[in-house]
């Protein structure tokens, strides 16, 4: 396949605005920018997903569905305090209870060595991972795991866990970054020293790291601006909210081999992190990723796997642990709350002169809040020579934060995109036009340094400007339309894929990427495209860590991009081998055999893939190929929204009347699932914008840890989410694919805030924009 180039084309293989079934969408609109020089037979079509039948019949096996013979059930005792010293843990009563087989605490874990460990999307200190799995000495948040029990059944386990007596000495707790950053705040970690500008300092602090990026001269830029707007914004802690709670079954067999079955975004991460925590060689651990019921970044960390393993080692039996919903809220995730200041200056002709931001994110109990990506993304859509960004990663007494879809970027965009809107408004410019005048493009340098390769920021904004939704009239008072744009990366990391050709012409595809949203199919389609066979003739399987080469997490919008690339490369090896096999049949050289769309031909002879596969035994034996990749040609993605809201001034309730999600996806491999990512990310963004938050009591405990009180959007809260797929090919990928899964969550809160402002004049500086918050702002404005 040649590297793709761009030229305008009037039709797309994936008509935007039309789903696989159901009624056509209103005002169907196709942006006039698509991949043009490549045409595809499989990529861009909408086959039924390979795991579909299992998932609509209840047959698919998720982690909690596993029941090995002799399994014991576990429960975890969690801290009721937000911050406390553990004076003692008395497990004697629990251990004596009928039906209890084992109890473990942090004392059962090996001492953590002071070293870094790769936890899926970057490195962290092993002691932090350790401390989060089972608290040692101190608990740092309500929900922090303290001890665990294995028992006959889950009821007995829970009773026993509650019979463990922990003597706590409560300590002052800090719930927000500004509180924890205060000069007189007590340290959460006595050994934490601030890292500043990449250097380790000796300053004891609750600020784990301070990042700073600067370019040009910001002061001069503001001095030369006709309009300068500066505002400060706060966002609440929110949770990824996957429907399936975390679960694990572990069997530490008598031969020393540890087998873990769990719901994870990265089986190899579970293997490697568990290996480091338990000091067991990776070769002694096998991780089988079960079907996963949502993750959104929150199922990258390791929580219960080492605990289940310890309980299994103590009992000699398989041990299963499943979190309750309350455990999920208080013991996992969430995404950091934030405190963000943004300042933007522009000249009267609509040119941005200076951009400045300070971001402080709540990492939770341990460092690592994704504030740095927030800082990289805060102005990612704009081309400006003068900018300055400061980021503070702050530990607070909340659960250790985890990645949540474009981690860090949504909070940043909520701030930046409102200030950008306000500047446009003060200049009397259309908000989309103002963004277009300043849009980042190929060669623009991002705040953190790198220059963009080909990106689709302008094309996305043009699609917004030209979309019929943007020109449609609003129907009444208290209605408003907002727009916003956001950016997220695409990471390469590492993937492996094996293809085994069957003699009936089908191909088994073996891969190690957890399939959260249809990636078995989007990966298989890329192999099918190269082989010139149907998507249905590829049979993909996600396997355990013993059965496939190393594969990094399903995260960073990388799975279709990178594991798809590995499938593409393996398929090219198959094609080369099949040419050699055909050459053998016809007694010619392999380079005399041509391949096109699954047909192999030479000098008037030709044979199809299936027939050639049937002859594999006669032409040299089984045909199989493996490819591994560490791709560099990553393609970041821009997403934008047009949203219409109606605000009820009496109650402050915001209704979403119409929502259009626009995103540059490079190439939509399976347009239905691309639309699904855009719709799902948008909806999570809507929930983040309007409803979702951790209500923390004065004592630092969560007061709404149920799905009734933590209010995620329901079907009734939403209109249809219209999608507009923009395809600006990623020149770094064989099919032009960009990361798709994440950028779509970035703009919604800002777009909705801008819509609220246009509807009722209130400038919302805090998330969520729940009815009481909006009502208060409306009353004030």
């Amino acid at each position, binding site marked *: 396949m040649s590297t793709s180039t761009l030229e305008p084309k009037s039709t797309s293989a994936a008509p935007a605005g039309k*789903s*696989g*079934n*159901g009624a056509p969408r209103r005002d169907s609109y196709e942006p006039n920018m698509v991949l043009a020089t490549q045409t595809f037979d499989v990529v861009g079509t*909408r086959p*039924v*997903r390979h*795991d*579909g*039948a299992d*998932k*609509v*019949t*209840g*047959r*698919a*096996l*998720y982690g*909690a*569905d596993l*029941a090995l013979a002799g399994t014991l059930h576990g429960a975890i005792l969690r801290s009721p305090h937000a911050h406390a010293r553990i004076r003692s843990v008395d497990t004697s009563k629990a251990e004596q209870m009928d039906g209890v087989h084992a109890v473990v605490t942090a004392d059962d874990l090996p001492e953590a060595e002071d070293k870094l460990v790769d936890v899926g999307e970057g490195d962290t200190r092993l002691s932090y991972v350790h401390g989060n799995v089972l608290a040692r000495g101190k608990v740092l948040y309500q929900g922090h795991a303290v001890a665990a029990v294995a028992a006959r059944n889950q*009821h007995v386990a829970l009773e026993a866990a509650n019979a463990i007596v922990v003597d706590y000495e409560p300590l002052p707790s800090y719930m927000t970054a500004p509180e924890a950053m205060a000069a007189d705040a007590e340290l959460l970690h006595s050994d934490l020293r601030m890292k500043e500008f990449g250097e380790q300092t000796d300053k004891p602090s609750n600020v784990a790291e301070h990042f700073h990026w600067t370019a040009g001269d910001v002061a001069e830029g503001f001095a030369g601006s006709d309009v300068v707007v500066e505002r400060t914004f706060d966002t609440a802690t929110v949770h*990824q*909210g*996957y*429907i*399936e*709670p975390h679960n694990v079954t572990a069997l530490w067999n008598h031969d020393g081999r540890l087998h873990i079955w769990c719901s994870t975004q990265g089986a190899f991460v579970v293997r490697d992190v568990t290996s480091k925590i338990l000091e067991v060689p990776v070769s002694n651990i096998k991780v089988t990723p079960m079907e*996963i*019921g*949502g*993750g*959104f970044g929150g199922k990258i960390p390791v929580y219960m796997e080492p605990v289940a393993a310890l309980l299994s080692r103590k009992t000699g039996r398989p041990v299963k642990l*499943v979190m*309750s*919903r309350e455990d999920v809220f208080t013991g996992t995730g969430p995404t950091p709350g934030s405190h963000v200041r943004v300042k933007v200056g522009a000249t009267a002709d609509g040119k941005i002169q200076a951009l400045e931001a300070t971001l402080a994110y709540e990492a939770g109990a341990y460092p690592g809040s994704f504030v740095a990506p927030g800082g990289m993304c805060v102005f990612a859509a704009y081309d400006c020579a003068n900018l300055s960004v400061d980021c503070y990663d702050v530990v607070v007494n909340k659960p250790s934060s985890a990645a949540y879809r474009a981690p860090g970027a949504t909070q940043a965009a909520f701030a930046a995109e409102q200030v950008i809107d306000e500047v446009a408004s003060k200049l009397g410019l259309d908000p989309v036009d103002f963004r277009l005048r300043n849009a980042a493009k190929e060669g623009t340098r991002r705040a953190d340094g790198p220059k963009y390769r080909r990106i689709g920021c302008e094309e996305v904004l043009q699609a917004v400007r030209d979309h019929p939704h943007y020109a449609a009239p609003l129907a009444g008072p208290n209605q408003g339309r907002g727009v916003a744009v956001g950016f997220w990366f695409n990471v390469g990391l590492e993937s492996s894929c094996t293809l085994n050709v069957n003699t009936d012409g089908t191909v088994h595809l073996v891969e190690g990427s957890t399939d*959260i*949203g*249809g990636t078995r199919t989007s990966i298989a389609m890329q192999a099918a495209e190269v082989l010139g066979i149907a998507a249905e003739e590829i049979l993909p399987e996600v396997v355990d860590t013993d059965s496939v080469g190393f594969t990094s997490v399903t995260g960073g919008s990388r799975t279709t991009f990178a594991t798809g690339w590995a499938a593409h490369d393996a398929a090219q090896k198959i094609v080369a081998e099949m040419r050699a096999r055909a050459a053998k049949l016809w007694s010619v050289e392999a380079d005399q055999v041509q391949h096109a769309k699954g047909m192999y031909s030479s000098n008037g002879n030709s044979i199809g893939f299936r027939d050639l596969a049937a002859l594999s035994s006669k032409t040299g034996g089984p045909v199989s190929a493996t490819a591994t990749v560490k791709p560099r040609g990553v393609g970041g993605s821009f997403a934008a929204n047009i949203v219409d809201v109606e605000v009820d001034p009496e109650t402050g309730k915001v209704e979403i009347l119409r929502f259009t999600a626009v995103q540059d996806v490079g190439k939509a491999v*399976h347009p*239905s*699932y691309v*639309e*699904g990512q855009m*719709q*799902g990310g*948008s*909806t*999570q963004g809507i929930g983040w914008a309007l409803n979702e938050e951790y209500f923390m009591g004065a004592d630092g405990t969560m007061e709404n840890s*149920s*799905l*009734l009180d933590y209010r*995620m*959007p*329901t*079907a*009734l809260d*939403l209109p*249809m*989410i219209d999608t507009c797929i923009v395809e600006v090919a990623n020149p770094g990928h064989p099919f032009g694919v960009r990361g798709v899964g994440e950028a779509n969550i970035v703009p919604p809160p800002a777009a909705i805030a801008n819509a609220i402002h246009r509807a009722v004049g209130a400038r919302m500086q805090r998330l969520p924009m729940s009815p009481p918050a909006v009502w208060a702002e409306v009353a004030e404005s």
Partner: protein
Amino acid sequence: MQSIHVRTKINGQAAEFLCEPRQSLLEVLRDVLRLTGTKEGCNDGNCGACTVEMDGRIVPACLVLGAEAEGADILTIEGIAEGSALHELQNAFLEGAALQCGVCTPGFIVASKALLDSNPDPTEEEIRFWLANNLCRCTGYDKIVRSVQAAAEKMQQEATS
């Protein structure tokens, strides 16, 4: 704790089981009868992943005690397809890409079937209202609602042809 002997009907077949008084129908279905298609997302009636039909009404199985199933007629996701033929809703969910991770899907399909059984031609608003107790975190509901609409249309065509 003394077990209770319960006689019930599940997916058209007579079923008997022993359960503890504190065990929910969800636990019984999953752990005792090994019908694991019914999922647990919250265990307090707020996510809809464990939706089953009981005597013609949809209920969250986590809020029903196993003992309450005595004499009842229960339909779970495992009983939706007829033999080797998928239900139109199941086909529509696949054609319409109405699932991503799939863990909420059994609950949505059971709930949607109950809707179409009582209201073969629902409006978008009626579908959204009916499914408001089923949480999906992946799809934004768009493709689910459209797939229910598509299945309704197909079933009506079949009914009139």
